[in-house]
């Protein structure tokens, strides 16, 4: 285990008026539990507003959780609690070990820094390779590692295409030899023909550098391809989780099933979008419905769904669902 989150909750206050009084909360995450293991890809899938990006940002300490506990297992097998109480040294170590790749390669690289500067900065901050010559060699190595020419280190981000920029982001993320990388939709801004190149690179790094990924995407096919385990989220809660193949072949939560059916099939002979009967849209996270967050759209809704939130319930060795259909209470 590298990172473990227990009952993670994240509320963003909505402030109004002259005195900025809190008028309500955007409830981005509700009681999320997860565990990321060594050399494992945990896929997080869900539609916009489901909290997947917020969760990624909580893990990388961009946001601090409103409630709940995050634990980090250091390489020396010591557990430290991540959060405000960490001392500076621990924070720095944690940030070195858990890196991030952002969705938009056009806004995540500083346009005024050369590629070399971008890769040098984390090394300077963490005082890796104090010898300038070794540092430069390492930067060249990094560029080659992600499939770019070493000469590119003198160039600026605007000189590169989207796919190349994403490679630079990956080089920056792996520069500090992290143990885990949070990938927030790393290919959704890229062309189809380039997307596979980046996915292949991430897979290769996982195998060769023993990397773990926290992989966030709305693309179910992609999540299935890269993940060992998956978590399906809806409106801040985990609806279903388990081993990837298991969840995809035996999707059990009504939401997961609808989601799977909504992916366009690449086969014009088997058109099936006409059979979809998911009405409506996700409710607002400011006023989520009582009970199960999916009850307003669920085809199998029951009385209890509107009263009580179901908890994750094991339905297989590596498969849990939060749905009253599978819970004896229902």
């Amino acid at each position, binding site marked *: 285990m590298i990172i473990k989150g227990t009952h993670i909750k994240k509320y963003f206050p909505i402030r109004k008026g002259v005195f900025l009084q809190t008028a309500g909360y955007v409830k981005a995450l509700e009681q999320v539990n997860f565990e990321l293991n060594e050399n494992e890809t945990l896929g997080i899938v869900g*539609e*916009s507003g489901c909290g997947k990006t917020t969760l990624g940002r909580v893990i990388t300490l961009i946001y601090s959780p409103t409630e709940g506990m995050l634990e980090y297992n250091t390489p020396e097998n010591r557990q430290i609690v991540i959060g405000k109480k960490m001392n500076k040294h621990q924070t720095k170590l944690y940030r070195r070990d858990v890196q991030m790749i952002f969705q938009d390669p056009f806004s995540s690289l500083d346009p005024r820094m050369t590629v070399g500067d971008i890769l040098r900065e984390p090394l300077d901050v963490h005082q890796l390779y104090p010898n300038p010559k070794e540092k430069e060699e390492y930067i060249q190595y990094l560029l080659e590692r992600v499939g770019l020419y070493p000469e590119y280190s003198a160039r600026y981000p605007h000189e590169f*295409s*989207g*796919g*190349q920029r994403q490679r630079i982001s990956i080089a920056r993320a792996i520069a500090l030899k992290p143990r885990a990388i949070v990938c927030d939709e790393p290919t959704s801004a890229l*062309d*189809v*023909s*380039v*997307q*596979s*190149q980046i*996915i*292949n690179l991430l*897979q290769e790094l996982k195998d060769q550098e023993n990397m773990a990924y926290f992989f966030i995407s*709305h693309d*179910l*096919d*992609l999540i*299935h*391809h*890269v993940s060992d385990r998956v978590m399906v989220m809806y409106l801040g809660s985990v609806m279903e989780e388990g081993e*990837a*193949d298991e969840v*995809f072949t035996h999707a059990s939560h009504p939401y997961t099933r*609808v*989601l799977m*059916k*909504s*992916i*366009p*099939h*690449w*086969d*014009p*002979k088997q*058109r099936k*979008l*006409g059979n*979809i009967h*998911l009405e409506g*849209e996700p409710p607002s996270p400011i006023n989520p419905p009582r009970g199960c967050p999916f009850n307003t759209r669920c085809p199998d809704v029951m009385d209890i769904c509107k009263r009580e939130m179901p908890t994750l319930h094991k339905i297989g060795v590596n498969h849990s669902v939060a749905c009253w259909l599978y819970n004896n209470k229902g």
Partner: protein
Amino acid sequence: MSIIQVNHLKSFFKTEEGIVKAVDDISFELRENEILALVGESGCGKSVTAQTIMGLLKSPPAIIEGSIKYHGKELVGLSNKFYHQLRGKEIGMIFQEPMSAFDPLYTVGEQASEAVAVHSNLNKHEIKDKIIAMFNKVGISEAKQRYDEYPHQMSGGMLQRMLIALTLACDPKVLIADEPTTALDVTIQAQVLNLMRNLQKEFNTSIIFITHDLGVVAELSDRIHVMYAGKIVEKADVIELFDNPKHPYTKGLLASRLKRELKGQTLPFIEGTVPRAFEFPKGCRFHPRCPFAKEICKEQEPAPTVFNDGHVCSCWLYADNHPLDGVDR
């Protein structure tokens, strides 16, 4: 019967970095009651094609050559005055970002009525009734209240439906949809695609559907034109194209699809990246990325080869005197 006939259309732009040949000599037709998909990656010229047909490009800086015939009427060089009568009424357009297609300062009802008022002689109340009826038709609940609300009060999916509703309220013969579902979530995308298919049948509209997503194309379209770097490289019926792709680019796109059974394996991909618009390579524009590229591909542009079933592909692999003849393709 064809409604729109595009012949040797070119849309170039003069920029500081040189002439951008965004659309370079493309020809195609839109037939009655069909959904024609223009498919390609960013920078292939699919959106520029749509904007050219709609007369949305100012020239200069745009240089437009060739011909676009709508029911036999030439659109290239048509004055804005005449275009006004055409846009919305005859040819409607739906944009990618529903959020930015609406003006945030006016209610959705006001904006929808404005469009209808321009093209009809109905009075205010009739227009309002018509819009509300259309809102109902595209599945907006409580359409009456929604009519008086502002765009920020709606979700992206709802705005896209409203956009479709107001476009269809003018009863256009042709609808150009530029990536209408790209900004939407999959479950909402499925709803919108469904809606478009049903409305197309009901209103007998012909649709030019622009997208980069081959999955969406497979669900919706009747015929497909694949574009790359300003050119149409392949044309075929939807089933034929997915069963029997001919151009190496199309093949590459179809192969890079994520398949369940290939989980965790290295994905097939197309080498390199899409070239930038002012530095398209000589010869076949795909040749630097093409696994089958030969000398001739670097020098000369391939002409379209027509196969007996109406499948068209512009590639030297299929030219009669190609050096690769006899090799298994």
